[in-house]
């Protein structure tokens, strides 16, 4: 469901400004899938993702009185979610990388070869990446930030960002190939 097109959105936001618990729940419910999918990509597991999600919504309900029409709630929520996720990861392990600035090459896959893989399985592959690689991959590949922006966000060098992205891609490619091998063996 497109959150921005939900006719109830502005009613919930206005009620949330008055700390109406019922509306808070409705808004939370409407955003749950979108927000949780972002959190899951950044977190190591589902429990961490839940924690990031709720920390984010605490901020949302705390600051929602600042929103005024046109709300652009989705972009605002996304910003808070990513922010909280990075903070959560940084708290547990600072983004201190020591990596060279390897040249970034595009890694290609055949989508048809992986049609059997569910979104949950792909998500698990991303979650299994080391947090440092995972964060850069999410910010670059999914969110669309540039290496310069990522470097500034994570307080790392542009070279490190590129290098980590490349390593993340390599790791994902390896996992995909392993999955393909298992699938082919099972289907024999």
């Amino acid at each position, binding site marked *: 469901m497109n959150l921005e097109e939900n006719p109830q959105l502005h009613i919930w936001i206005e009620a949330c400004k008055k*700390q109406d*618990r019922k509306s808070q729940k409705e808004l*939370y*419910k409407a955003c*749950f*899938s979108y927000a*949780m*999918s972002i959190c*899951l990509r950044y977190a190591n597991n589902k429990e961490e993702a839940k924690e990031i*999600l*709720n920390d984010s*919504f*605490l*901020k949302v309900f*705390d*600051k929602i*009185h*600042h*929103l*005024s029409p046109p*709300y*652009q709630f989705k*972009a*605002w929520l*996304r*910003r808070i979610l*990513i*922010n*909280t996720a*990075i*903070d959560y990861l*940084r*708290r547990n392990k600072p983004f201190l990388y020591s990596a060279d600035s390897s040249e970034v090459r*595009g*890694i*290609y*896959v*055949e*989508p*048809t070869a*992986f049609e059997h*893989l569910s*979104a949950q399985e*792909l*998500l698990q592959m*991303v979650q299994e990446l080391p947090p440092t690689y995972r964060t850069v*991959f999410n910010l*670059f*590949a*999914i*969110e669309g*930030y540039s290496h310069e*922006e*990522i470097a*500034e*966000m994570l307080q790392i060098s542009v070279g490190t960002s590129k290098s980590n992205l490349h390593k993340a*891609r390599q790791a*994902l*490619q390896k996992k*995909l190939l392993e999955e393909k091998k298992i699938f082919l063996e099972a289907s024999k």
Partner: protein
Amino acid sequence: MKVKMEKMKIDEFFKEKLTNLEIEFDEEVWNDLEKKLDKKKRRDRVLVWWWHWEKIAAVFVFGSLGYGIYHFSEKEFHKQNNQVELVARQEPKEASNKKQNLEPTPRNTATTSRKQENVFLFPKIKEPKNFTYTQENPKQVEAINLDRILEERNIHTSIALQALTLDVSDSLATNTASEENKKSTNISHTIGLAFSPVISPNGLQAGLGYTHEFGITERASLVSGVAYTPWAGTNNLAMANNAQNSFIPDPASNNIRLQTLEIPLETKIKITENLSVSSGISNTFLLQEKIADVVNNDFEWSISSLNVGVQYDIHIGKNSQLNLQPYYRFPLQSIGSAGTQISGFGLRAGYSYGKGKRRHRNTIEN
């Protein structure tokens, strides 16, 4: 070539699969959040009370400080006044011995009664050593003579008129007192303009404002003012909104603009003639916040930072100087919907007028 067309970038593959992930609502996760919200609500109630008490405490502190300054300056004022008065009370007899043939005449009395302030004024002033009563000073002569008459009638200067007395005595004494006799009081004022760029995790900001320094003692002074500061970050202006992550930039806030008015309240202690240390808080008033294309015009106030700095003064004239003040801002309360926290190194560079020009009151001493 055909094989390559069928392939897609691994980034795009994952983006396509993961972007529209459908996840079912989990009631338990909401229950956890609800507990946190309840806990926060209780804490907020305490904070609201604390916030009120904080304001009351601030009013009390600044009120006390203001009263202290007033009381101190009054004390200094009376101290000087009393010194003059004590000397002056011994003076009329001596003066009368020195001044022969200067008994009051009806004409003299009449003249002085038209300028009554002189009647109350003059007994408090002790004349300088080189002061001589001659016919060239008819005003003083008349006043002294009249004072003697009034003293005999037990008419005393009232406390209420002391202020008037000193002001007028100042104006009279200016002509007779030497520069050495000038005494500095502990009150001074300095006004100035300041330009302050700040380099911080928030980006680079620059403010322009006016400052006023109010000297309490020879060494200590209070500094306040007002500065307009437009804050702009290319990417990482907004900071995450809690204590642990105050230096974490917000990755999605690449178009944030803030317009603020800042009112610092600082105490400055002079270490040497040119060097001072200062510490205090900054009150920040949010005038406008712009995130991407969304404009937030909600007026907000926060005690945004604790400021600690060192000031170096370069005297360029008798009453004017250039000030250079490197300082650091420790973030306190966040401001705006993105929870921006103001912190970082800054440099106030300004020109001020009035520094070193202590307000002088003229007293006449032996």
